[in-house]
């Protein structure tokens, strides 16, 4: 940035929260819990046309223990619900959940014996993305919203203790 040449060997002061959150929000390791149609747009947003890497969140970890953000992409049904719960429980704090598409958000137009009416019946959710499936722009927008949310958090929040 050129700043380091100006400041030389001096030091900067900042709030711990801000330094930590700055680091967190630009290096999300995500766990893609891809189940259904929304996965197509998820693939698009990963590829070079939309390029989620610009936001520092391009690195998928398929081990929940190494992930920060859980992307629940697509419909979750009753058979899958325990699997989702287990993946969420295995993730370390701090962790965030993005509900991707209407099926994950509310069950969408699948209102029947098989589907769970929104993953928030199973796990807590931070960001909801509407759309069936959402366009890639909406996904990037949601990611920016999540970054804003993370930047407002404090290391003293209960969930980090």
């Amino acid at each position: 940035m050129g700043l380091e040449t100006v400041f030389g060997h001096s030091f900067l002061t900042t709030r711990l929260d801000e330094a930590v959150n700055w680091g967190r929000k630009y290096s999300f390791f995500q766990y893609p819990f891809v189940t259904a149609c929304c996965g197509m747009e998820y693939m698009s947003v990963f590829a070079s046309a939309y390029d989620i890497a610009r936001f520092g969140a391009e690195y998928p970890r398929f081990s929940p223990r190494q992930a920060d953000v859980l992307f629940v992409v697509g419909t979750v049904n009753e058979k899958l619900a325990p699997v989702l719960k287990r993946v969420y429980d295995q993730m370390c704090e701090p962790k965030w959940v993005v509900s991707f598409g209407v099926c994950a958000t509310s069950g969408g137009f699948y209102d029947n014996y098989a589907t769970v009416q929104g993953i928030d019946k199973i796990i807590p959710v931070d960001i909801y993305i509407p759309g069936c499936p959402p366009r890639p722009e909406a996904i990037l927008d949601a990611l920016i919203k999540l970054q804003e949310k993370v930047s407002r958090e404090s290391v003293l929040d209960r969930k980090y203790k």
Partner: protein
Amino acid sequence: MTNYLLETFKAKFPDDVLDTHAFRGDETVILKKEALLKAAAFLKDELGFDFLMDLTAADYLPREPRFELVCHFYSSKNNYRLRLKCPVAGTDARVASLTSLWTGANWFEREAYDMYGIKFEGHPDLRRILMYDGFEGHPLRKDYPLKKRQPRIPHRE
């Protein structure tokens, strides 16, 4: 207009064929479920229907016999399709399995069992395929409510 295939069937199984029709050109034979296995073997070995394209069921609830097993056969040699249907009573929902003729019938029959509760006799591994252990009832039956959920884990609120 007589139909060669349907006539052959009637001649071969005079006691078992209940009805035939060709609605919109889809030739259909309705026969007793006891004759299903031998009719399918006849189709495969003598008429050259090598593909079991689909096997499913349907529920006509107020009517008795309640279920209908529906098989779609396809002959790649003659490029011909045929539908075979067997009425199955709700009180005695058992049919002979076609797995001895087509290995692929395995999963189709498991699905029909899962969704309708029709038991396939002679099936090597008849268990649920789409629903889970502990699910009670068969969801595609007409008397199963559309929104009756059976969660595996308690939901938050």
